[in-house]
C-alpha cells in the first residue's frame, strides 16, 4: 500500500518539477520593457526601479565567494530549516547532496561520499560553530544529533564544504568541514518564545532574547529544554522470554538542555555555548542488560570563544581568537544488574591568529597560526557498587600548526588557489597537508574547478590509550589516517533563478584505523590497517523563483571499496537522491516544505543488506498570518516507510540492522515580541 502511494507521490513530484520549471522561468519577459541594449541612464527613475537585476551571485558578496571557493559548497539557511521542519543538525545534513545519516538510537552518524562508519563519532568531519572547532579532544567527535552543542533554532545558516580541508583547518577536516553560523542579536530583535510537541511524548521549549543597539553592540542569549519519552521498540535479536520477548520500553528517552550567549561590539565577538544531553540506549549495546533504562550516555560540552577582527587601513585583515573548551562524557552500562561507568573528561584551551592581505593586486594571501593545549584527556571506567576500577588513564597533549594560502589570479578568469598547513601533534608527530585548486570562469556564471588535496584524521586518545584487563588493548603507536582526494566541479548559474552543479571525485584513504584482534592477547585493539578507495559523482539543480518557490534536486552515485579485498565498504549506499521543495501557498505567509530522500541499498556488517528506502517529510509553515506568530506542523516519514540502518561493530551492537522511526509528527509555535 505504502509503495503504491509512494509511486503516486513521486510521480506527482515529477510532474510538479517538470511543469514548474519551464513555466515559472519566463519571468524575464517583464524585462523586455527595458531591453539591455537600451541605455539605463536615460530611463526615468520609475522605470529604473522596476528593472530586475540579474546575476545576484555577483552582487551578493557571499554567493560570489561560493563560486570562488576552492571546494563544492552547500548552504542551508534558517528559512529552509524552518520550512522543512528540521529538528537537529542531522536533519539538516540529511537534506544535503551526497550526505546520509545513520542512527543507532544513541548517536547520529554522518556518511559522506560513501563513507559512513558507525562508532567513529563523526571524527572524519570537522564541525565548527562560528568558526570555533567543536570536535572534542577525547574521541574527536562532531556531535550532530540531539547532542549537538547548538540548538537548531539558533542556526542562521550551515555552510557545508566538501572535500579535504586540512590545508586550512588541520585534523578531522577529512571528508568535509561543516560551519554552523549562529544568529546575531539583530536577527532576533526582541524576545522569542517557542514551544513544540512531537510523537512519543517529545516536548521542547525555548527562550531567546536578542537585540542590537545603535552604537553597534549586539547581544543574544538563548536556552532550550527538550524531553522525549522515546519509542517502545522491538528487537528480534532479543525475542525470548528472558528478554521481555524483545520488547523494550522507557529506554529510548532523550533529554537535553542548552544555552547560547553571544555578544559583539566593534571587532570583538564573545561567545559561549553549553549543552547536555542524556540518551537512553535501547539496543543493549556492548552486551549490556536488555530493557534496562539505566543504560544511557550523557554528553556535556561547553566552550567560551573570544574573537577579534580588524581591518587595517593598509589593506590587511587581522583575526585573533582565544578559546576554552570542555567535554564530559558519561556512559552508564548495566551488566547483571550492576552499573559500570565510563567517564571521559576533556579540557583544552588555545588560540589562533590569522592575517590576510592582497599582494600586487593578484594574490590574496592568508597566513595563520594555531595552538591547542589539551591539558586534560582523561578516561575512566569502573564498577559502581562495589567500586572496582577498570580504566584510569590521564593524558595531555599539545597541537600547533601554521598555514598559508594564496589565491592567485593568473588571468582575469583563472584563479589558482594553493594552500598548505603543517600540524605538529605531541602524541604522534607532524603532518603536512596541501590543497591545490584551479578555478576557471570562462563565462559569467560558468565555473570549473579542478581540485587536489590531502587531509588527515589524528588517532584519538580512546583509540590510542583506552585499555582494560580483559577486552581492550591500547596502541600508543597509532599514526593518523590520510586521505588524498581529486575532484572536478562544474557549476552553472542561469541568471538568478537556477544553479546547477555537477562534480566527480576519487579518493584513497591510507592507514585507516580499525578495531582488530591482537593475536598475542586475543584482545581488541586499534591498528592502522586498511586502505579504502572511492569514486563517485553528483549532480544538483537549485531553483529560486520570484513567487517564493524554491527547490533543489540532487543525485549522487558513489562506489567505495576496500583496496586489499576489493569488497564494498559497509554502510555505503551507491545511490542517493534528494528533492527539497518549498511551495508558497500564500505569498510570504504560508509555505509547504517537502523533502524526499532516497538512500540506496547498503551492505551491513554481517554481509546482509539494508534495503533501499524513501523518506518523505512534509511541513506546513506559516509566518505573519497571525501577528508575531510562527506556526508549523510536520509529518516525518509521511508514508511510514519501514527501514533499518546498519548496526555498528560486533562489540557494540548485536543487531546487524537497527529499525528506524516510522511516521512521526511535530507541531511548533514561536511567538516573537
Amino acid at each position, binding site marked *: 500500500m505504502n509503495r503504491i502511494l509512494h509511486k503516486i507521490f513521486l510521480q506527482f513530484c515529477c510532474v510538479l518539477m517538470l511543469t514548474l520549471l519551464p513555466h515559472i522561468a519566463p519571468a524575464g519577459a517583464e524585462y523586455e520593457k527595458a531591453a539591455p541594449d537600451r541605455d539605463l541612464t536615460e530611463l526615468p527613475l520609475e522605470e529604473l526601479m522596476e528593472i530586475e537585476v540579474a546575476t545576484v551571485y555577483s552582487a551578493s558578496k557571499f554567493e560570489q565567494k561560493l563560486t570562488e571557493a576552492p571546494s563544492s559548497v552547500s548552504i542551508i539557511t534558517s528559512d529552509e530549516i524552518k520550512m522543512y521542519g528540521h529538528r537537529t543538525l542531522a536533519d539538516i545534513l540529511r537534506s544535503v547532496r551526497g550526505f546520509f545519516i545513520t542512527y543507532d538510537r544513541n548517536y547520529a552518524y554522518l556518511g559522506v561520499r560513501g563513507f559512513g562508519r558507525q562508532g567513529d563519532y563523526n571524527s572524519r568531519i570537522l564541525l565548527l560553530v562560528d568558526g570555533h572547532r567543536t570536535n572534542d579532544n577525547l574521541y574527536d567527535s562532531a556531535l550532530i544529533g540531539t547532542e549537538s552543542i547548538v540548538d537548531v533554532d539558533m542556526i542562521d545558516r550551515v555552510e557545508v564544504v566538501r572535500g579535504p580541508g586540512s590545508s586550512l583547518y588541520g585534523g578531522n577536516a577529512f571528508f568535509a568541514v561543516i560551519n554552523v553560523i549562529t544568529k546575531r542579536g539583530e536577527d532576533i530583535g526582541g524576545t522569542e518564545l517557542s514551544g513544540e510537541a512531537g510523537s512519543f511524548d517529545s516536548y521542547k521549549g525555548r527562550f531567546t532574547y536578542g537585540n542590537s543597539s545603535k552604537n553597534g553592540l549586539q547581544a543574544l542569549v538563548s536556552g532550550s529544554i527538550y524531553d522525549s519519552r522515546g519509542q517502545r521498540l522491538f528487537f528480534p535479536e532479543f525475542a525470548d522470554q528472558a528478554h521481555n520477548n524483545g520488547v523494550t520500553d522507557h529506554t529510548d528517552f532523550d533529554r537535553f538542555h542548552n544555552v547560547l550567549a553571544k555578544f559583539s561590539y566593534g571587532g570583538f565577538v564573545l561567545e559561549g555555548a553549553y549543552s547536555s544531553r542524556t540518551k537512553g540506549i535501547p539496543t543493549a549495546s556492548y552486551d549490556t542488560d536488555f530493557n534496562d533504562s539505566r543504560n544511557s550516555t550523557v554528553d556535556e560540552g561547553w566552550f567560551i570563544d573570544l574573537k577579534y577582527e580588524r581591518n587595517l587601513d593598509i589593506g590587511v585583515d587581522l583575526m585573533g581568537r582565544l578559546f576554552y573548551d570542555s567535554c564530559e562524557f558519561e556512559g552508564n552500562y548495566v551488566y547483571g544488574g550492576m552499573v559500570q561507568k565510563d567517564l571521559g573528561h576533556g579540557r583544552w584551551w588555545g588560540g589562533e591568529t590569522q592575517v590576510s592581505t592582497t599582494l600586487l593586486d593578484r594574490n590574496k594571501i592568508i597566513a595563520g597560526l594555531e595552538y591547542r593545549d589539551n591539558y586534560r584527556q582523561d578516561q575512566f571506567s569502573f564498577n559502581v557498587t562495589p567500586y572496582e576500577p577498570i580504566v584510569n588513564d590521564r593524558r595531555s597533549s599539545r597541537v600547533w600548526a601554521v598555514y598559508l594560502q594564496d589565491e592567485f589570479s593568473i588571468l582575469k578568469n583563472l584563479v589558482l588557489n594553493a594552500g598548505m598547513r603543517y600540524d605538529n601533534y605531541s602524541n604522534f608527530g607532524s603532518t603536512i597537508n596541501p590543497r591545490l585548486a584551479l578555478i576557471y570562469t570562462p563565462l559569467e556564471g560558468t565555473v570549473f574547478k579542478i581540485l587536489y588535496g590531502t587531509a588527515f584524521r589524528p588517532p584519538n586518545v580512546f583509540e590510542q590509550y583506552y585499555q582494560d584487563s580483559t577486552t581492550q588493548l591500547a596502541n600508543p603507536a597509532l599514526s593518523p589516517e590520510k586521505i588524498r582526494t581529486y575532484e572536478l566541479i562544474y557549476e552553472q548559474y542561469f541568471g538568478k533563478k537556477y544553479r546547477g552543479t555537477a562534480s566527480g571525485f576519487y579518493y584513497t584513504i591510507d592507514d585507516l584505523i580499525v578495531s582488530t584482534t591482537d593475536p598475542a592477547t586475543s584482545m581488541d585493539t586499534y591498528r592502522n590497517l586498511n586502505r579504502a578507495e572511492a569514486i563517485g559523482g553528483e549532480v544538483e539543480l537549485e531553483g529560486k523563483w520570484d513567487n517564493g518557490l524554491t527547490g533543489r534536486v540532487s543525485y549522487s552515485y558513489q562506489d567505495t571499496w576496500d583496496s586489499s579485498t576489493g569488497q564494498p565498504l559497509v554502510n555505503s549506499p551507491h*545511490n542517493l537522491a534528494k528533492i527539497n521543495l518549498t511551495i508558497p501557498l500564500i505569498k510570504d505567509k504560508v509555505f509547504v516544505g517537502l523533502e524526499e530522500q532516497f538512500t540506496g541499498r547498503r551492505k551491513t556488517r554481517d554481509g546482509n543488506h539494508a534495503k533501499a528506502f524513501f523518506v518523505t517529510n512534509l511541513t506546513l509553515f506559516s509566518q505573519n498570518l497571525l501577528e508575531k506568530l510562527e506556526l508549523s506542523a510536520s509529518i516525518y516519514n509521511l508514508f511510514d516507510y519501514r527501514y533499518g540502518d546498519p548496526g555498528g561493530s560486533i562489540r557494540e551492537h548485536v543487531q546487524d540492522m537497527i529499525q528506524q522511526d516510522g511516521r512521526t509528527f511535530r507541531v511548533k509555535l514561536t511567538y516573537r515580541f
Partner: protein
Amino acid sequence: MLPRLLTISTFLLAMAYSPGSIYGGEKPKPTDYEVKAAYIYNFAKFIDWPQSRFPDRNANIDVCVLGNDQLGQYLAKIEGKSTGDRRIGFKRNTSLETLRECEILFIDNSQMGKLDKILEAANGSSILTVGDTKGFAQRGVTINFYLENNKMRFEINLQAANRAGLKIRSNLLNIAKIVTGP
C-alpha cells in the same frame, strides 16, 4: 526500482529541460552595478550641492569609488554625461586622503570595517556618500542601495544629507525609504 528510476529521470529531465527555457532567446539582464551606475547618474541630476563646493561654474560632479571597483566600468560609461548645468566626472584610485575631491563617493562593502573613518574624513565637505551594504545608512551613509524582489531600491539618511548641505529633490525622496541614523 521504479521509484528510484523515476527520481533519477525526473532529475535528468529537469536538468535537460530547464536550460532551454532559460536560454530561450532572452537577453541577459543588467548587472546590479549597471543599475547602480544609472541611479548614481540620477542622483547627480536630482541632488543639489552648495555652490561653494565647486571651484567654478564648469566644474564636474566627480564620482569616486572606495574599495572593490566593480562599479568603475559602468561609471566610466556615465563619465562626461550632462546633468543639466554640469557634467559627470569619474576619478580613479581614490583613497582616504583624496576622497574630499569627490562629490559622490561610493563606499564598497569591503570598506565596512573602515566606515567610521571614511565618514569622518568626508565630514564637512558636502560629499554625497553612497553604499550598498545593509546598515550603512543607519551608520551615517547618505544613500544606501538594497535589493527588494530583485529590484534595486535605495534608502536615504536625511540627517546625513542635511549635515553635508545636500538638497535632495522630491522625486528621489518619493521613491526612497527614509531611515534615521547619525
